[in-house]
Structures are given as C-alpha cells and as structure tokens.
C-alpha cells in the first residue's frame, strides 16, 4: 500500500484537520465529535442541510459545506458510516430554527445511523426530514436487495437542496426538491483499479491488468460484470445505456451531464469520457444544458469514472446555477 498518510488509524482525523486549516474562511471543524460546519454557523431562519457518510469519497461531503450547499458534513471512518453522536451534533449546529434536512446515501449503515440521529435530534427539539439518495443503476432496486446505492448523484442533490435552503424554502419544500433531484438522477461507474482502505492495507479487490469492473460501487463493491479493458468510447456506451434506459431519458430532455473521477483517474481521461458521452446524448436528441467534470465522489485512489445524468427542469436548473461557495464547488461569488 502506497499512500501519503501517517498512521492508518489517523487518516480521517488528520485529513479533516488539514481540510479545516486550508479553508478557514469557509468551514470550521469540530474534532470530537468529528464534523465540519460552515465557518459562519447556522443561518437563522433557514433550513439546515446535513450530509455525511464513510470517508474516502473526498471532496464529498465536507468539500460541499458552505454557502448555497451543505450546512455541515459528518465524515465517518473510511468507508464506514459515522455513528449517531456526531450526526446529532452536526444537526444541532446546523439548525437555524427552520429544521434540518438529512441527505443520506442509501447504504444500510448510513440509513440506520442517520435514522437514530434523526430520532435523537427530534428529541432535542429539532425537526429532521431525511432524503435518501439512490442513483446507481448498476444495482437493481427490488425487494431482494438493500435497494440502489447512492453515488455521485449525491452532489446534484446536495447542490440543489442547498440552493433551495439558501433562497428560504421551508423544510418540506427543500426535502421535496432534494427528492425530485434524486428521482431525476441516474449514475453508473466503472473501475480500472481498486482503492486500498488504509487500515486494511490491501486493495479492496483485485482486477487483472486487462480487466475492468462495470457498475462498480464507491466502496469497491463489485458491479454488474467484469470485462476486458476496451476503448473509452465503448465503456461510456456501457455506462450510458443503462442510465438512459432507466429513467428513461428521452429526446428533448435537458440534462446535466456529470463525469466523475474515482480518485486515481486524471482529468485528461475524464474529458475523453465526457466527449463521447456528450456525443451520444447529442445523437439521441438529449440536450446537455449543464456539465460538471472532475473528481467529486471518489473511492480513495481507485482509477475509474462514473457518469451521472440529471434531467433538469427550469427550477432545478436555476437551483444548480445559484451561487455556491464551498471548497470543492464554487461559482457566482
């Protein structure tokens, strides 16, 4: 395992501490219980937005704390949901009197810990509503699974919910926007290599030099199929087809196209992927109205990408465009 870390046990604490040192104008870090909140504190009268989950997906979620997006983020251990205590603390710190939205990726651990935290925060008098993100089409949603996983689409949900909260929507309205963003978002990813969980010390899975995993999860969960490495355009086709089929997206739709790097894949490759994805959408008469390219929801140093497509209506577009000032996403101020 080759990483720029000190003791594997301190990876999250030290990284979050560094994050706080680097962005003192945007965030403040609570070390115990560990959470990251806006430097300016809760906005009085506005809905607070808290997200969180296992670490190893940076900049998700702490990189999205700031004006127009999250009020606070709760980083768990690497790939492990945080416990309820820090979630409760982050929730209380984010309440400006209008209640708090929890944005939770659909993993059993995250759902259960946020559920407990919501109960505890409720008991402290803070109203909490939760929205579950489950955008990953690689996993079948059925009675016989834990349901779809939440992956890169989380960025879209957090951005539009944050903008809705910032413009003064009430808790139910913000939750409705987040739910609508999630309902219109689909994602799927591919891995070329595996990340290595620091305390495990070995790659989460092993891919032979000529194989890739289609439908990978952001914790290295195996995907739909393992195939031989092929040209980028073919891989994009394999990711995009199930995404487009699923909603389904149709000619005339306006969309956000989001190419997300998994942590170890450089931008030069991400833009090659973007190029073909944009071509395919154009052929199908789907208009790419907005775009995002970069490593926003990662899986440690995994090489690979995911594609996310969100169907935009006027309101979602306006909320996407609204000013945001976070460490990882910034525009309009």
């Amino acid at each position, binding site marked *: 395992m080759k990483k720029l870390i000190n003791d594997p046990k301190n990876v999250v604490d030290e990284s979050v501490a560094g994050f706080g040192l680097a962005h003192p104008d945007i965030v403040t870090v609570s070390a115990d219980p560990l959470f990251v909140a806006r430097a300016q504190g809760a906005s009085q009268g506005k809905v607070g937005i808290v997200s969180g989950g*296992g670490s190893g997906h940076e900049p998700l979620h702490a990189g999205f704390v700031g004006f127009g997006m999250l009020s606070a983020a709760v980083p768990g251990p690497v790939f492990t949901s945080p416990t309820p205590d820090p979630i409760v603390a982050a929730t209380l710190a984010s309440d400006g009197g209008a209640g708090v939205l929890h944005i939770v990726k659909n*993993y*059993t*651990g995250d759902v259960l810990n946020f559920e*407990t935290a919501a109960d505890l925060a409720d008991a402290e008098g803070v109203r909490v509503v939760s929205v579950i993100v489950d955008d990953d089409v690689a996993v079948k949603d059925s009675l*016989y699974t834990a349901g779809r996983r939440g992956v890169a689409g989380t960025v879209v949900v957090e951005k539009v919910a944050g903008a809705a909260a910032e413009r003064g929507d009430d808790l139910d309205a913000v939750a409705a926007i987040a739910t609508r963003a999630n309902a219109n978002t689909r994602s799927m990813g591919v891995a070329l290599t595996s990340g290595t*969980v620091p305390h495990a010390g*070995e790659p989460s899975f092993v891919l032979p030099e000529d194989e890739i995993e289609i439908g990978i999860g952001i*914790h290295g969960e*195996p995907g739909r199929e393992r195939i031989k490495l092929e040209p980028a355009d073919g891989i994009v086709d394999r990711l995009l087809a199930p995404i487009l089929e699923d909603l389904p997206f149709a000619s005339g739709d306006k969309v956000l196209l989001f190419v997300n790097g998994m942590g170890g894949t450089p931008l030069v490759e991400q833009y090659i992927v973007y190029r073909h994805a944009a071509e395919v959408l154009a052929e199908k008469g789907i208009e790419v109205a907005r775009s995002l390219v970069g490593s926003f929801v990662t899986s440690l140093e995994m090489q690979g990408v995911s594609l996310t497509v969100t169907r935009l209506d006027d309101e979602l577009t306006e909320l996407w465009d609204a000013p945001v000032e976070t460490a990882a996403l910034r525009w309009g101020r």
Partner: protein
Amino acid sequence: MSLGINWVTTWVAKTVDVVSTNRLRLVDLDREIGDGDHGENLDRGFTAVATKFASLPDDSTPGAALKLVATTLISTVGGASGPLLGTAYLKGAQAVGDATELDSDAVVAFLTAARDGVVLRGKAEVGDKTMIDAWTPAVDAATAAAADGKSPVEVLRAAADAAAQGAVATEPLVAHKGRASYLGDRAIGHRDPGAESSSLILAAAADAADEVK
C-alpha cells in the same frame, strides 16, 4: 445456578479478545462481499466497550452493564453493524431489566429480545444472509434447551453452536440485505461477516458462562 454481573464482564472481556483476534479475518470476509471494514468496526467498538467497562461500578446490574455495551457500540461502531448490534444489546438489556441473576429463561428472554431488536432495525429474515442467520437459530436452540430444563451455561452453549452452524449456512446463500445484496449470485460461496461475528460473540457468551459458573 444462574449468571450474574461477572458473567457479563467476563463475556465482554472474552468478546474484546475474540474480536481483536479475528479482526483481520472479519475484514477479509467483508472484503469479499462487502467493503472490508467489519472487523475494524467491531474492534473499534469493543475496544471502546473495554475502556468503559474498566470503570464499571461494582454494583452494576447485568442489565445496566449490557446497556452500556449497547450505547457504546451505537456511538463507536458505525456502519450497519453498529446500530444493529447496539440495538441487540439495548433490547436485550431491557428484557433483563434490573435482575441481578439470570436463569435459563432470562437468558432466553435476553437472546430473543436481542434478536428482535436486530430485526426491528434491519428487517432481515432468516436466509437473507445477515447476522440474523446466526441469531435466529441461536434463539431457537436456546429456547429448546431451556424448555428441556438445561442450565444457563447449556442454554448459551446450544445458542452458540447453533449460531456457528447458522454462520456456516450463510455460505451458499444470495444476500437480500446489506452491502452483499448488491452482488446477486456472486455472494454465493462466501460466509456473511456479520453472521460470523455474531457467532463468535455468542461463543464468547457461552465460554464466559462456563468460566464463571
């Protein structure tokens, strides 16, 4: 004969041991069909429990001690297993109440409430390839042993043996809950890490009872 507070403290000590010894094995099991943190999660949790138990008041009841295990696990383990196992101890502790000594029936009531707690939170059924596949056979075996008039030690041993078999029996299954459910058929052939750890925890319970009896 019955089990008191020293059974709980011995059980906790043995669990801390067995979880730490099996940390990497559980990580490996979880890497195969999950995300490779289960051993780490439990080890973090029970290490914290050990610290808390170091200052456990001498006059604690078994119920109070078990509740301390519960809240500590809930606030340190995280992941899926944290709330699930934590709820197991919490509901189990509630079933024990403020009794100072547990007879066979109390042990069965404890195990049943613990299992029901996991089901309440996680909604898994037997055969879903989760820790429930260890807990439910354990409860059934314990119930049968108690009905046969067996001692608390024998009841716990029956539970532990059934849990161990239950864990092995997860191997051929497809998972319907938790991370492994994403794998479909590819989960087949792998033992569920949570069932395995629950079986280790229940074996520690029986060993502890043996030692303090």
